């Protein structure tokens, strides 16, 4: 079976966000980009599934500019068999990204597709679901446990105050949450092998955006708060402020 993993290339979570000159996007100056943290769990689950099934292949797909190859390369070093870069220099919203990914997944003939549950840039958390729906695949999101038995899929997904167990079947899209597994580190051998693996490059299928960003702004600065005091002696005053000034308890 062919297994696809869709990955994105995002600013590191330690990034301080500055708004770019267009007033609509992040200023990429001085920003370190990394493989989206949730995608590491997606890659790991794809590799584990391949190891379990034998006779399968894991292909990594990423949409974006040339630099996304770094992220694809990281997945190849972890053990993925091949990579595809869907080239596009321009901003795409979730819908337009999903359109191009769906087209490529169809071309690849993948029956099982893993995504991270969301990218830590735009935080939409919907590309997996959109892609599944466009393909007519089943879908289970925010997975913390995944089991495949023949065509049958059982996923535990995180919900408020617990988990729910979802049953579905292949073909399917699964989106990975932290806790699904422990992503492996790329071994030196893996890193060397990744250099020899080819990344196929092609133009991303054209698609129109369904949304338009009008502007990006910083959240309102919080006014400097007050230090109520030091040590336990400040506690009665703190509790009084919470009750009488903030009125939150």
């Amino acid at each position: 079976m062919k297994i696809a993993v869709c990955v994105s290339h995002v600013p590191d979570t330690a990034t301080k966000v500055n708004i770019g000159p267009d007033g609509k996007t992040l200023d990429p100056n001085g920003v370190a980009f990394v493989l989206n943290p949730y995608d590491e769990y997606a890659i790991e689950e794809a590799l584990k599934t391949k190891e379990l099934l034998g006779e399968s292949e894991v292909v990594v797909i990423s949409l974006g500019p040339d630099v996304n190859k770094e992220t694809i390369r990281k997945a190849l070093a972890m053990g993925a068999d091949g990579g595809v870069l869907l080239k596009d220099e321009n901003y795409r919203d979730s819908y337009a990204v999903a359109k191009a990914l769906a087209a490529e997944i169809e071309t690849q003939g993948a029956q099982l597709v893993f995504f991270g549950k969301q990218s830590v840039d735009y935080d939409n958390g919907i590309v997996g679901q959109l892609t599944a729906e466009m393909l007519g695949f089943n879908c289970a999101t925010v997975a913390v446990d995944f089991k495949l038995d023949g065509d049958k899929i059982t996923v535990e997904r995180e919900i408020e105050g617990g988990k729910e167990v979802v049953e579905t079947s292949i073909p399917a899209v699964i989106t990975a949450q932290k806790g699904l597994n422990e992503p492996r580190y790329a071994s030196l051998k893996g890193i060397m092998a990744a250099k020899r693996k080819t990344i196929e490059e092609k133009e991303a299928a054209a698609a129109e955006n369904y949304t338009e960003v009008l502007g990006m702004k910083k959240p309102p600065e919080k006014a400097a708060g007050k230090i109520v005091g030091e040590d336990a002696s400040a506690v009665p005053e703190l509790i009084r402020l919470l009750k009488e000034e903030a009125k939150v308890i």
Partner: protein
Amino acid sequence: MANNILVFIEQRDGKIKKASFEAAKAASDFAAKLGGEIKAVVIGGEVENVAQLGGYGAANVVHIKNSELTKYSSSAYAELLTKEMSDGGFDILFISNTAMGRDLAPRVAVQNNAAAIIDCTAFDYQDGTIVATRPVYAGKALVDVKATTEKKVFTLRPNVFSAGSPSDASATVEVKEVSDVNLKSRVVEEKLSSGKLDVAEADIIVSGGRGMKDAESFKLVEELAGLLGAAVGASRAVVDAGWRPHSEQVGQTGKTVSPSLYVALGISGAIQHLAGMRSSKFIVAVNKDKDAPIFQVADYGIVGDVFDVVPAMIEELKK
């Protein structure tokens, strides 16, 4: 018609979720601005007190009913909601941005050829266009977004839109029994930690960081949370160390929260943590280091050792 809003009401275990009352009230307030009306859709088996949605501005409710729909099924819910949207000629759908809402919204969007705008924290209406505000980079920035499509699906961040106090108005409820629901993907079991509040829903959160020293010391955090009726949260360092489960993590690779009160104990305030909690209405920080970044966002701070201050807070609250 174009300005009428359909609002999805989430039930679990036959009870309507608080976030759905917020969504109903927000839809009703916003529809009034647009000159439209709202209709609420409940999907489930037996559901308690559906008529009380009238108190939140939803005068008309349709309850789509089948015992197979008691638990969530993404395939069935998406199809039924899509049908309700197209049959009723609705161009706008509001859904609260819960685990279910975020799972469901994009599917309904594709089925309706609609844009999906996720995790909205404000809505504005400018020159005939709805402009939604939503956080990006876990709240380090906000974007204003509009849909370029005729149909639009919006999800609303819980705890941001106030449900207010309900009026006594009772909704007219139409029960639609359905059969042959599409259960290709379905929830077969819910495993809920009984009585445990979730950080994503809680009105008060008490979070602990590395300053709590070890997993054992979280008993103090739990005790304080218990007294305040709060959920227990944790920083990434604590979750990575295995002291607390990931479901409690607040921050960029955990949950982004907006409670009324956020109490940060022994949390220094890494940028990815601040991003996840800075929109809390009031923030209290207790930290030994007076220069810790957490104090820059805290409304009230105490410089001191958590093992000295937290027991004193517990004592004071017990008085």
